[in-house]
């Protein structure tokens, strides 16, 4: 670790938080319908779709509308992927995807996971990338943010029956937040080297006279929303490590900014929507604290390098460089890694599979903590609010009072639903991983021997259920078993989680809003932030400890003892 490295980390985070402050206020204005600069397009959409944006929905209606939009998105994307061989914008002449790969990919992009069992430049037509994957990058992000806005509204007043109109939130977030940001960031990406072209792959004759086919495409726009929407699905197989998808350290820094700024801003949006900005700041402080700790751990592990490789004669100065690019440096790799897994983005600028055992354990554990630090756009906010409810419940148990959060009583029903949601992740991850570690057809997908092989399988289901999408890429993921089970894990991680969460929102909305009293536990100070951080660690992380002990921790210790596989 170097001072220059830490200066890079500090600069990128400071610029991100500085932008999140006005953006958080702006999103609150969008949510309230006060932003109208594309009103004509907005009204046209409502007219064609038969939507009355002023009509409020209860939690059931809101959730059903969300499910309908996502089902339609899945159907369109699945059809596009299956039929791409017959459709235009396919200069490389790629065939349609197999049914299980199309299922896996369509689920992956609709659930904001962007797990990729294919390699973009070797499988996807330009039409599939643009009209299929890019569109779902927008819509899955708008879905998450809409759900978070509905959840925030539950705290706004007492006795509410309605949480807003899903179609209006969904349309406004897309038009006024995601599209303008994606256009600006997309042009910035082109300016610093990302291609944006429909030309077929370039044929070059190298200086030594060999032929080199160079994959191209409409990269910049898709990569802009891939980060802004915390989607993470790369245009190319190696994602943001590809020189066209991450052409420079500046590009990688701008990508980190892009996948952190909306999740950070939403924490503040929450504060604005409940009328107390400091409530949002407390959430943001917890998120930032975890990001910093995780970055430091990855940075230390990767800059330290692999002891066996150093003993074999490798200069330790650059740290562990297997699976890393020269231009980024270890500091920006560490910050990218911590933020992409903390934020449920899943893009990578280095290969986790080749990280040191502890360096690779950090992204794995960050996803297992529940994707709330700061989590995906929207999903991170409603996720951390679920933990906040559990934190006030724990505090209430300690002092023997009925817990309250922002004037809403948290009672048995909400706590049961919150625990139901929190348990989706461990049940899905550990259940599917356990089955896949004994099923011969699944074990055949594991490339590595020893504890690293266990980590590769555990990471796949963690990434899928956490809707992250990053991978220990050595795993052979495109098999009928893994395509199907990882697809189911993604669906459970998104929808089995969000239905109880929306039920909590409905239940809290209907309760009266109590005024603060002398006995109210303040939820904006350092005491609450510390309690929340602890609850996330214990409730989110503890159940994964046995699996982590068998995977990355075991590998760390046997590696230190000189054992390889």
């Amino acid at each position: 670790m170097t001072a220059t490295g830490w200066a890079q980390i500090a600069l990128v985070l400071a610029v991100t938080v500085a932008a999140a402050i006005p953006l958080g206020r702006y999103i609150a204005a969008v949510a309230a319908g006060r932003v109208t600069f594309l009103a004509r397009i907005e009204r046209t959409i409502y007219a064609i779709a038969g939507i009355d944006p002023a009509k409020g929905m209860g939690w059931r209606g809101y959730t059903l509308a969300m499910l309908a939009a996502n089902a339609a998105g899945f159907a369109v994307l699945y059809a596009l992927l299956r039929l791409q061989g017959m459709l235009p914008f396919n200069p490389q002449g790629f065939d349609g995807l197999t049914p299980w790969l199309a299922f896996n990919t369509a689920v992956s992009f609709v659930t904001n996971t962007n797990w990729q069992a294919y390699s973009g430049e070797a499988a996807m037509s330009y039409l599939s990338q643009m009209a299929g994957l890019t569109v779902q990058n927008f819509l899955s992000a708008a879905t998450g943010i809409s759900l978070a806005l509905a959840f925030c509204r539950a705290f706004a007043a007492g006795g509410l029956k309605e949480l807003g109109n899903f179609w209006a939130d969904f349309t406004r977030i897309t038009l006024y937040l995601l599209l303008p940001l994606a256009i600006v960031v997309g042009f910035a990406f082109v300016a610093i080297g990302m291609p944006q072209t429909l030309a077929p792959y370039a044929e070059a004759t190298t200086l030594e006279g060999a032929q080199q086919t160079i994959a191209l495409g409409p990269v910049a726009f898709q990569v802009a929303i891939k980060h802004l929407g915390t989607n993470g699905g790369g245009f190319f197989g190696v994602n943001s490590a590809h020189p066209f998808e991450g052409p420079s350290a500046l590009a990688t820094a701008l990508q980190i900014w892009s996948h952190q700024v909306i999740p950070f801003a939403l924490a503040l949006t929450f504060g604005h929507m409940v009328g107390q900005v400091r409530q949002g700041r407390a959430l943001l402080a917890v998120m930032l604290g975890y990001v910093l700790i995780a970055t430091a751990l990855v940075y230390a592990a990767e800059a330290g390098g692999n002891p066996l490789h150093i003993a074999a004669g490798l200069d330790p100065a650059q740290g562990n460089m297997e699976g890393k690019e020269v231009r980024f440096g270890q500091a920006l790799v560490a910050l990218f890694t911590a933020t992409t897994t903390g934020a449920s983005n899943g893009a990578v600028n280095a290969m986790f599979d080749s990280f040191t055992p502890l360096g690779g354990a950090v992204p794995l554990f960050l996803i297992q903590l529940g994707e709330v630090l700061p989590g995906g756009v929207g999903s991170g906010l409603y996720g951390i609010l679920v933990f906040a409810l559990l934190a006030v419940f724990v505090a209430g148990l300690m002092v023997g009072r009925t817990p309250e959060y922002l004037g809403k009583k948290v009672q048995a029903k909400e706590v049961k639903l919150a625990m139901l949601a929190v348990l989706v992740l461990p049940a899905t991850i550990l259940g599917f991983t356990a089955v896949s570690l004994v099923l011969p057809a699944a074990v055949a997908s594991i490339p590595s021997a020893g504890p690293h092989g266990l980590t590769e399988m555990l990471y796949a289901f963690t990434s899928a259920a956490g809707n992250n999408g990053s991978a220990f890429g050595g795993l052979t993921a495109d098999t009928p078993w893994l395509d199907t089970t990882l697809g189911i894990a993604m669906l459970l991680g998104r929808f089995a989680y969000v239905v109880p969460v929306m039920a909590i929102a409905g239940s809290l909305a209907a309760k009266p809003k109590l005024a603060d009293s002398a006995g109210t536990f303040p939820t904006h100070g350092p005491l609450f932030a510390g309690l929340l951080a602890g609850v996330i660690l214990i409730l989110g992380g503890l159940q994964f400890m046995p699996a982590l002990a068998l995977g990355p921790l075991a590998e760390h210790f046997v590696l230190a003892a000189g054992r390889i596989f």
Partner: protein
Amino acid sequence: MISLLRPALATVGIFTLLLGLAAPLTMTGIAGAVLPQQAGGSLIEHDGRVIGSALIGQDFTEARYFHPRPSATTEADPDNAGSTRAAPYNAAASAASQAGPSSAALLETLRGRIAEAGPAPVPADAVTASASGLDPDISLENAARQVARVAQARRLPEQRVAALVTATAEGPELGLLGEARVNVLRLNLALDRLTAASRP
């Protein structure tokens, strides 16, 4: 439930046209007009033909060129359907080794490369495979160790080759972000120009 069908299909349909076609196609048109070099993939032409991209590494094995990092990219094996064979710097199929830290095969590979590149300690980027298999850069330490070989193969003074490395090298961006490095294709192009100019 049926009442949800119309808004669901209509919004997805409209947004597919707007976000999936109108926006990216407009952007492609504007980017191609305003920033044609970057939007087209930063391709480098030499005597009227494309010799590569400034951003994409290419394989160099001859002694008179600086060599890039090891690359783990592959291509379909024409002799053996369904399997692949090594094809370094295949820019149509980016790939990493994905070898784990406790992999015996990786340690064996590294030992072989270190023995070739010796004497130890060897700069890490000289013997490890990059994340993309297309890394266009090498570290300055890696380049410095290749100067003697390149100078000898080209019958140039070492100082002139070393000076060219320094002139081609790039520092961290904005003076802060990322690492100092040298782009191998640009360096080798500059070398070819230098050799051509110094010939009688």
